[in-house]
């Protein structure tokens, strides 16, 4: 049984490394080659994990090979547009100017039910309000409504709201992130003043404290900390 434990840990770490190499995409956004990799790796790891009669190396070698080939393919897809199109396909225009491209839908085996579902999920019920609906290479549907159907932005309304910038976390669940504090150009004295102004003595009593580029502070007291 201890063999199962050790093998599982080794293979798990290897798969984590593989998933890490694939980048920050979610499963639903995988390109075909990445999806194939994920499916095969899971199966390759499961077999030597359960069957002790199979050497661990016969699971590790295919996994390492797949990861290396995927790394090569991902570099090639970055370098060559033609190769990317060959491997990942091209986006397909499903709706153009409110009109369905039925041939394109059939080519991608994309049903009208799936299209309606995707549109509803994006808050669109009327196809005639869609300027473009594009089926991306990762299977996601991008929907671009007509300009007159888009919600107005502040700019359209002649407003100029203040730009807060990116808030940085200074205290995370009672822990002071000193690097972030310095990045914003503050020191511990500033932080102590902030804590005092919120009626808190120690950072451990704070759940979240952020500060944005306009020096606006968000403060959240830690529940049950007194």
């Amino acid at each position, binding site marked *: 049984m201890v063999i199962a434990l050790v093998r599982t840990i080794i293979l798990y770490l290897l798969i984590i490394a593989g998933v890490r190499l694939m980048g920050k995409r979610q499963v639903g956004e995988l390109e075909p080659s990445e999806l194939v990799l994920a499916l095969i790796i899971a199966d390759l790891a499961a077999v030597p994990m359960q069957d*002790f*009669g*199979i*050497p*661990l*190396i*016969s699971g590790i*070698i295919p996994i*390492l*090979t797949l*990861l*290396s*080939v995927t*790394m*090569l393919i991902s*570099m090639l897809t970055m370098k060559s547009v033609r190769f990317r199109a060959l491997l990942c396909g091209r986006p397909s225009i499903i709706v153009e100017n409110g009109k369905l491209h039925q041939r394109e839908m059939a080519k991608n085996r994309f049903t009208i039910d799936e299209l309606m579902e995707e549109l509803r999920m994006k808050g669109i019920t009327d196809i005639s309000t869609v300027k473009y609906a594009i089926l991306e290479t990762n299977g996601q549907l991008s929907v671009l409504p007509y300009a007159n159907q888009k919600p107005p932005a502040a700019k359209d309304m002649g407003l100029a709201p203040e730009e807060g910038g990116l808030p940085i976390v200074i205290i995370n669940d009672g822990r002071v992130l000193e690097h972030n504090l310095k990045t914003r150009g503050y020191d511990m004295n500033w932080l102590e003043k902030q804590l005092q102004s919120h009626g808190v003595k120690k950072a451990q009593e704070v759940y979240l404290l952020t500060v944005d580029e306009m020096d606006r502070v968000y403060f959240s007291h830690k529940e049950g900390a007194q």
Partner: protein
Amino acid sequence: MKRVWIALAILASILAATLCHSVYLGHFTRDLTALLETAEAEAEAGNWDSALDLTQTARDKWDARDSYLHITLRHDVTDGIYTGFREVAELLHCQEQGEYSAANARLIAGLELLSEAEQLTLQNVL
């Protein structure tokens, strides 16, 4: 570009290691097979002690590479060879010519198949 070189290096290392393994396994099993065939010839000539020594030498060689073989080959295959060596040794002790020949032939065939399964051939790939 660094990632491409890392990926190519890993692939090249795996290819080299697996090719070395199959070549090594070929030599290793041929060596053992030669010893077992000589042992059989000795047994047929009535030199049972000499046959036992040769078989024991082959067994020692196998045992010396036990960890390597266990790591790289299916465990049921290595266990089968190990069992074969013990069977052959016992039959040599009993001086059972017919059964010894059959068991020795099984062991030699097992070793040959073990090596053949690791060779880079179209037959194995397909």
